């Protein structure tokens, strides 16, 4: 048992990102950097080492520079990638002189061969623990057991020839950019440029079957300032017109309007967040259409007023009235909940659509016992006479949280025709004859 051991879950993506960043940073040593996933980098230093004062100095320099960044590092140099990898993993800091791979690798454990786990295990089980011991067996003996490719691997590892490095490749992304010879200033030109960029971005998305959830526009001013504007959408989007209208809404709503100053020399549109999206076929279904229109309206409103200002209610699975729904940003789709309607359309609603922020205490001088509704009550300094009543609906609170009294809810209609949703906090047998009453909502 290790005390105070901190456990962090693996985050493969973050590891990969970090590796990429270190690879980028290694550009300063050689342009030929390859990722050796998941934890290694291969640097081709052919003809470079002398710049750093020779291989030995270069190796310690690179190691030191990476170590300073707080990373544990192992490294080695050899004539081939395979040998260098093996040394870096099993003989940190070793440099294999040209043509001496076999000698340098000999004492390494068989794991350094980095062949299939099954073969490694078989070698260990046979008592062959080092590369030297494996190398000493007959080639036919090995080939008949582990196949010709294993023998080839062994020879390559110990030899001097192999294939060159595969250089790194940039990730495909969705980005459209226009550069101007002369900085542009006029609204019309900017608009035309955005139009063209939106069309080309839309085309890219279409080809890849993607839709964007976050659209970003970058305006690079001639003087070096960059304005960045972003728009979120509720559904994956690839329609150029819609993109433009959302951008317009956003630009219109800016507190500081976009100022070209001496003009923009680059304008760029980026789909920063995308997701898979089936090609939208025009639907004849009205419902479908109206759903799209609502989604578009939500996007526009959110672009204009901010995404947290446009909200929708999501049903929650609970009996507790004040917790029955929560409001979330309308574009956010991480929240799901289903509104269940068990009752017939013709039945009057059991609860009001919206509840008071907080239940408000009312005074009830007269009510029926044991569970009758109030006959008369005062709320916000007004007196109400109850004409009709239905209930009670008995709702017990969640006992595993804080113990709270059970409530009896009533739907009441006053003489004036107003309809309210009231409750008594606690049953008579729990509270005695003077329970508290509350108003929780008003029926439309």
């Amino acid at each position, binding site marked *: 048992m290790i005390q105070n051991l901190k456990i962090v879950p693996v985050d493969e993506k973050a590891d990969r990102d970090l590796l990429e960043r270190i690879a980028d940073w290694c550009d300063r040593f050689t342009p030929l950097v390859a990722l050796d996933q998941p934890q290694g980098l291969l640097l081709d230093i052919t003809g470079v080492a002398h710049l750093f004062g020779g291989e030995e100095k270069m190796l310690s320099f690179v190691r030191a520079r990476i170590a300073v960044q707080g990373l544990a590092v192992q490294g080695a140099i050899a004539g081939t990638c395979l040998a260098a990898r093996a040394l870096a993993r099993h003989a940190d800091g070793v440099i294999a002189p040209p043509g001496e791979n076999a000698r340098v690798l000999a004492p390494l454990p068989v794991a350094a061969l980095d062949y299939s786990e099954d073969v490694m295990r078989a070698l260990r089980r046979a*008592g062959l623990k080092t590369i030297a011991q494996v190398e000493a067996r007959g080639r036919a003996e090995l080939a008949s057991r582990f196949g010709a490719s294993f023998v080839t691997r062994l020879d390559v590892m110990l030899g001097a020839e192999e294939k060159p490095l595969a250089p790194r490749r940039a990730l495909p992304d969705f980005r459209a950019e226009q550069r101007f010879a002369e900085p542009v200033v006029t609204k019309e030109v900017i608009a035309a440029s955005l139009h063209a960029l939106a069309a080309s971005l839309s085309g890219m998305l279409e080809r890849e079957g993607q839709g964007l959830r976050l659209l970003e526009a970058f305006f690079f001013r001639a003087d070096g300032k960059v304005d960045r504007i972003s728009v979120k959408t509720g559904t994956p989007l690839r329609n150029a017109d819609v993109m433009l209208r959302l951008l317009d809404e956003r630009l219109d709503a800016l507190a500081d309007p976009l100022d070209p100053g001496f003009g923009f020399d680059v304008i760029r549109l980026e789909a920063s967040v995308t997701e898979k999206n089936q090609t939208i076929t025009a639907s004849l279904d009205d419902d479908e259409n109206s759903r799209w229109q609502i989604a578009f309206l939500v996007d526009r409103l959110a672009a204009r007023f901010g995404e947290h200002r446009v909200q929708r209610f999501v049903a929650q699975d609970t009996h507790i009235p004040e917790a029955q729904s929560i409001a979330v940003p309308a574009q956010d789709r991480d929240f799901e909940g289903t509104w269940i309607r068990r009752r017939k359309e013709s039945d009057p609603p059991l609860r009001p659509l919206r509840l008071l922020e907080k239940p408000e205490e009312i005074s009830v001088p007269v009510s029926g016992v044991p569970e009758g509704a109030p006959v008369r009550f005062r709320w916000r300094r007004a007196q109400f006479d109850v004409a009709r009543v239905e209930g009670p609906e008995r709702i017990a609170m969640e006992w595993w949280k804080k113990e709270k009294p059970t409530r009896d809810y009533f739907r009441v209609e006053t003489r004036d025709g107003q309809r309210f949703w009231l409750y008594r906090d606690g049953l008579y047998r729990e509270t005695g004859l003077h329970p508290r009453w509350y108003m929780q909502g008003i029926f439309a």
Partner: protein
Amino acid sequence: MTYAELAVTTNFSFLRGASHPWELVERAAELGLAAIGIADRNSLAGVVRAHEAWKKLKTNELPKLLIGARLVFRDGTPDILAYPKDRKAYARLCRLLSIGKLRAPKGECLLDLADLKKYSRGLLLIVMPPANPEDAKPILASLGAGVWLAASMLYTGEDRRHLKRLKQVAREARVPLIAVNDVLYHDPTERDLQDVVTCIREHVTLREAGKRLEANAERHLKAPGEMARLFRACPEAIGETLRFAQAIHFTLSELGQRYPREPVPRGKTPDGHLRDLTEDGLTRRYPDGVPAKVKELAEKELRFIANRKIAHYFLTVHDIVAFARSRGILCQGRGSAANSVVCYALHVTSVDPMEIDVLFERFLSTERTEPPDIDVDFEHERREEVIQYVYQRYGHRRAALTATVIRYRPRSAIREAGKVFGLSEDVTGKLASTVWGHYGEGLSDDQIRQGEQDPHNRLVKRAVMFADRLIGFPRHLSQHVGGFVLTRDKLDWTVPIGPAAMEDRYFIEWDKDDLDTLKIMKVDVLALGMLTCIRKAFALIRAHENVKDESLTLAMKPTDPSVYDMLCNADAVGVFQVESRAQMNMLPRLRPREFYDLVVEVAIVRPGPIQGGMVHPYLKRRANPSLIKFPSPHPDHGPPDELYELLKKTKGVPLFQEQAMRLAIVAAQFSPDEANGLRRAMATFRHVGTIGTFQEKFIGRMIARGYEKEFAQACFEQIKGFGSYGFPESHAASFALLVYVSAWIKKHHPAAFAAALLNSQPMGFYAPAEIVRCARDHQVKVLAPDAAYSHWDSTLERDAEGKLCLRLGLRQIDGFGDADAQTIMDNRGFGYRDFADFARRTGLPKRALVILAEADALRGFGLDRREGLWAVRRLPDDRPLPLFDRISAPDQGPEHIAPLPQLPLGEHVLADYQTIRLSLKGYPTQFLRSCLDEDGIASCQSVGTLTDGAFVRCAGIVLVRQRPGEGTAIFITLSDETGICNVVVWARTFDRFRKEVMGARLLLVEGRVQKSPEGVVHLMAERMIDRSSDLRLLSGDALPPAAPAHHPRDVRVLPPSRDFH
């Protein structure tokens, strides 16, 4: 005003109801209900419990108990409560449920409305209201007469509106409306438990449960006045409940059993046939003439059997046993009715009534109200043949297994309750792991701390509290291992039958206690590993040794002194019953010299005698007969020798279950009813509350009659200890016979005994390693499993000097299949030339060959573990296509290669343990010895040479951990290359070192040596340290944590390495 509640769900609607049937029935009586109707979800599993509770009610105004079921349909029909009016309608209900169960997987029931219509005659039906009352119309219209529409007032907020609509629907359909409260628990305070079981059922936490839970706590049994108030708008619905209850005339008391006719030949009466069989059997048992005493007893028993009309029962048992004997399947009966002259004559038992007083008289006198009970043990590997015979003879609709109600035990309760409160699996797992075995009472604060949890943590506390309440709740029904109910008529006219998990196996919805309550007889067809072992040993002895066939029988005379000598030395590994640590401790103290001593030995190391403090008095009196005296009452209250007859055979100390029960009747003057209640109370642990009242009565009356208080208290402690694990004398006698027979084999044929034990695994307390070690201690030469020589089973062979050796079978190799072993045996002929020949002729898949090589089982071909693997590796890959038949595959030429590096002995031993769980080459600890020596740790053997009271540190592999019953001591057996060391841990110490005791594979124990006058050496543990990590030194590799094993026998010293297979 009065009212009958007709919609009651008990906790036998698993994870739906939150109250036991008896709680509901008792509450109904308290509330003064006119009737209570139990209607569980497509099941009658809980009705007998309700019936039993109902019969016990003492109130003047008894509520009527209605037996029914809540039919839940798969076709969208609303739930319907069905109550049979009479016995015939009840049969139809059973049939209906059986049909639904038979078409569903185990534990479910699939019904359509059409099924109900087919069987609805005589059933009174209550249609539960659908969410939309109008939906009930077509169903009401289609069901005809005898139908009610239910209405409930559950505070939904629109109860009155709903009621009005239901009234309308009922009026239109011309059916009466009937009030129900759709009860899920007896008291509103059970709402929280109801929520918890709902969460368990839905696999959610309380936080996630939402509307799956009930909105309020209204679904409890309500008083008539309250129901009348709720239904004031419709009082006729209340009146209707009474009318409904009055229309029903069925109670479970009407059920009786009619025994199958088959075993009685045409033209004979059952009694006559039994008499003939008995007389015939006795002449064969006593070829030199039946002793007069036996004759007389047999006559008495036959008369009694005729009186009670239970000859059928004996004939059925005889029929089954006769079948087994005709197939050469060993079997032996036990149970209250088994130790009779009749059963001896019928070959159901082998205990000679001349050797030991037969006990049938006890059965005659005490269990008058109980159905007779005979359990028959069969060889565990061949019991299936017997079961198939029963099915074949009586048919699936007349023979079925009884059920076992699987209940929440502390482990499962804390696990599930923890989940509901959102505790993670490792937290609940840790809490559960501190519970020893399956039985026990709730979790103590200390145990919670042992589980590395804070007992004051609110969530943990809550989870534990609910776990406590959940303990004893039925969880699901499972088939009993072998209890058969046989009937003359269709069984599913009496109780619903459903399929078991095993194909073609069916079981009823009632368990043993239910059947007892209803006085329905059953025959237990049980499996006993030792019988398999004995038969296999007999077969090996016949084949390899020169022994007369007749002497190889269960009925051998239990008189050989050398066998008793061996047992007195506690040399009992593998011997039936007495191989446990506690028994082995007792053997040198009790020093059995004759058969009855074995009977006592078997019975005395049980929770009852131990808790009652009866062990020491018995041993003392055995050593010094002058101490024998019989407790007696004050002369005013009874004769001074009233207990003499009862206790004379056990030297005045009650040891057997029925002695304790008889004490209640004789010394405490319990009425038969009271005695019965006492027996029930001690069998059902949830009834803990009721045992207190018996305690007062029992002790109070004995003291009043002039017995010593200490004696009375000890007797009652003993009764409590018996619980459900008491041993009646009859069981002990049957078992003692097997003790003798197995000990005899061990003594005289140790090689055959070890082979038979190994071939009968899994059974017994000990792992193969221990069995093999013990055989070697008995001078048996043991040979390793080898592909060149071994069979699947372990066998006997003669070595060059003609000495009998034990050859381990290929079955000892983990992961090696019996089909592959069969292939090896089939192709062996006069032997394999070499490994290439072996591989070619057997054509075994490479995987199998690898397993053999890893187990070092290719030595017969001159290949050790490494060389074997290297050779297997060279073989071409498996080719499944017949086109490339192995015969036509080109032979690889012989290969001449340099030798591979030698595998060190330590690694060989380690690999042996990893593949066959034992090693004949050495012992893991011998390679650690130098490092143990450095730490000043003594070897196991040297512990025995120390003086009493010496302090010592000793380490060894943990072979066995045992905690007998509810004993205060835990026994651990440590072993190393020098021998074994018996460690005793007192409960107090155990509580501190629970983790080490439960988890360590290599354990270091510090403590003091204790030597008894009989020479028994114990190490009394004071401190323990888990040294399992030392084993790592052998492998040079980290050991994976040990997987939890359910039986000590399955615990692996070394888990399989990641390197293997």
